[in-house]
């Protein structure tokens, strides 16, 4: 049974992709102040698990609960509390870095002028007016991640956030995660790198590649 302060808990999730059971009857919970790393080899279902937790995919069986209520009953409330950044950065090449960020901030109810200042955090100052199609994949990812610095939503679900990010950037992100957790947030992420965060702060959920 999940404890009452669980922000998010998964109840007996089963995920099936093209005739293969990725995981079965997986239960886990995420509390305020948690940094949870989902680990496992390629094809173990890390991304699928994150997408199910974010409400983007439906599990074959089982359910995700947010504040002890099934997800499908309060999608809007859940989405108010969730930031998900997946493999794809969701950056439009036809818009500038600043416009891209400003759009996502505005959808959270934040003023667009916050965008310029936030781009500084991800080392993109000077690129505000560059069309995103002229920027690299790493820079796209940094634009996408930039909104985390402004983000007031407690639950962060991040799929491989460190891909194509330089060392300093990774360090900044890690500091941000710790800060967020201290303020009562919850970070769920996958990564192939070792986190340089105090091991006591990080929980790990290990997914195995199942043969059958």
């Amino acid at each position: 049974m999940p404890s009452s302060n669980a922000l998010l808990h998964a109840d007996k999730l089963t995920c099936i992709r093209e005739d293969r059971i990725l995981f079965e009857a997986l239960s886990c919970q995420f509390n305020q102040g948690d940094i949870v790393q989902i680990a496992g080899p390629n094809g173990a279902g890390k991304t699928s698990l994150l997408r199910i937790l974010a409400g983007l995919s439906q599990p074959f069986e089982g359910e995700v609960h947010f504040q002890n209520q099934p997800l499908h009953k309060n999608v809007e409330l859940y989405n108010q509390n969730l930031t998900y950044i997946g493999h794809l950065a969701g950056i439009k090449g036809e818009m500038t870095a600043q416009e891209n960020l400003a759009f996502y901030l505005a959808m959270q109810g934040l003023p667009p002028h916050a965008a310029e200042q936030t781009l500084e955090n991800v080392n993109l100052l000077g690129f505000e007016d560059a069309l995103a199609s002229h920027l690299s994949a790493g820079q796209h990812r940094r634009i996408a991640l930039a909104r985390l610095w402004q983000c007031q939503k407690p639950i962060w679900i991040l799929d491989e956030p460190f891909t194509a990010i330089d060392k300093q950037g990774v360090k900044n992100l890690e500091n941000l995660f710790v800060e967020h957790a201290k303020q009562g947030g919850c970070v769920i992420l996958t990564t192939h790198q070792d986190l340089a965060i105090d091991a006591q702060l990080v929980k790990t959920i290990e997914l195995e590649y199942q043969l059958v």
Partner: protein
Amino acid sequence: MWKWLHPYANPEITYHFTGKLTPWFTWLSIILLAIGLTWALLFAPADYQQGESFRIFYIHVPAAILSMSIYVGMAIAAFSGLVWQLKLADASAAALAPVGAVFTAIALITGAAWGKPMWGTWWIWDARLTSELILLFLYLGVIALHNAFEDKALAGKAAGILAIVGVINIPIIKYSVEWWNTLHQGATVSKFGKPAMSADMYWPFLFCFFGFAFFVAAVTCLRFKTEILSRNSMRPWVKALVKEEIK
């Protein structure tokens, strides 16, 4: 309210239940069709206007009625699959689509073959033939969409949404085509008046209709079983069942 449905939501139980029903449907269909078609071809009287060509009626009309009702049935199944998240309802919708398409094709072909001696041409843009043709397109769209997805559960959901959109459109399309038809052709083409059917025409028709209906049921059961298997291939019961059957 839907609690009583629960055992049927279990794929294993449904699979075996369907397996038990299939032979009943098959035999009923064979018997009814044997009686109905023999009666229709040999013993039913010829129509006083259309002569012996009227015998096409015994296939054409059941096929046309079934083609429409299968689409509606498919949409209802898809709707319950979408609303109550019944995975088996999606599977049954997927099983129905090809059957419906075949009956639509039969209705079209027999309609054309009946039209040639009656109207002097294989095809006229008659309201009923036109809407039957559009119905065939709707079926083909559903089938093509279903085949385009690799994940069968997603395929069922997507095809289901299309079937529901289609069923909302069918009355609109039917109405618009009928209206278009009267506008452009007026009374120049005499449609078949509803033939006043005598009892010796009515009975063979009923036998044929129910024969085809049970045929639909039998084939749908078979396809439904296939769908259940392919969607549950990772389940132990499916593996055991397949191991037993393929030796």
